[in-house]
């Protein structure tokens, strides 16, 4: 299981990168989202995974009665997801604005700021 998840994370990173290497603005952002998801899953996996035992103290007992999943990676990912959401929404709007100003979705045509002047 962990093995497949590890491969899957690799696929996330690989396809995210591949998307980033395209010329389309939208693909670029989708690529970033994919890599972000991969990173979140990586934290999840490397924090070690446990099935069916959420880190919620059950019923009336003050502490856990049996093993539970590590809550730290979950908290970290939660923070990371939310932050990526902020960045994503900004990115999406940036794309929209860039498109309306530059009038193209093609990243290759957005290189005026790198040229010598």
């Amino acid at each position: 299981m962990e093995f497949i998840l590890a491969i899957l994370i690799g696929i996330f990173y690989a396809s995210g990168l591949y998307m980033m290497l395209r010329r389309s603005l939208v693909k670029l952002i989708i690529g970033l989202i994919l890599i972000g998801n991969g990173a979140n899953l990586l934290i999840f996996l490397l924090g070690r995974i446990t099935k069916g035992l959420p880190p919620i103290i059950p019923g009336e007992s003050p502490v856990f009665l049996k093993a539970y999943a590590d809550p730290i990676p979950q908290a970290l990912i939660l923070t990371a997801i939310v932050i990526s959401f902020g960045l994503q929404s900004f990115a999406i709007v940036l794309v929209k604005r860039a498109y309306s100003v530059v009038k193209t979705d093609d990243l290759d045509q957005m290189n005026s700021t790198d040229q010598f002047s």
Partner: protein
Amino acid sequence: MKTIILKTASNYLLPLLMLFSFFILLRGHYLPGGGFVGGLIAAIAFVLHAFANGLENTKHLIRIHPGFLMPVGLALAFTSGLAPIFYAGLPFMTGIWFPEPLSVIGMVGSALFFDIGVYLVVIGVSLTIIFTITESA
């Protein structure tokens, strides 16, 4: 969108979703949920309303500018973090609690107010973003 079916549905879905969002906010300390998801659901409720009734109506409904919720939420979260410093000279964000739990909410303390701050910010943020995009679409 001009469809009375969605419009009518959104009118009864809105309070229901708001109720849920509040519910999810409050029980977050004990069960899955909390300020973040709660805030998202509240925001989604309004977004749904906006889809059905048009943005102007939704804005009219909310009355305050959703952006205003961001500083309010931040201030609430910040104050709940500062409280322990002024209250007991404890470090920033140290939890301070009322001794007895309330029946529905459970223990009331600075962490709860912090979570409410999160809730408000999330609503403010989501609505600001979506409304802004919709307006300029």
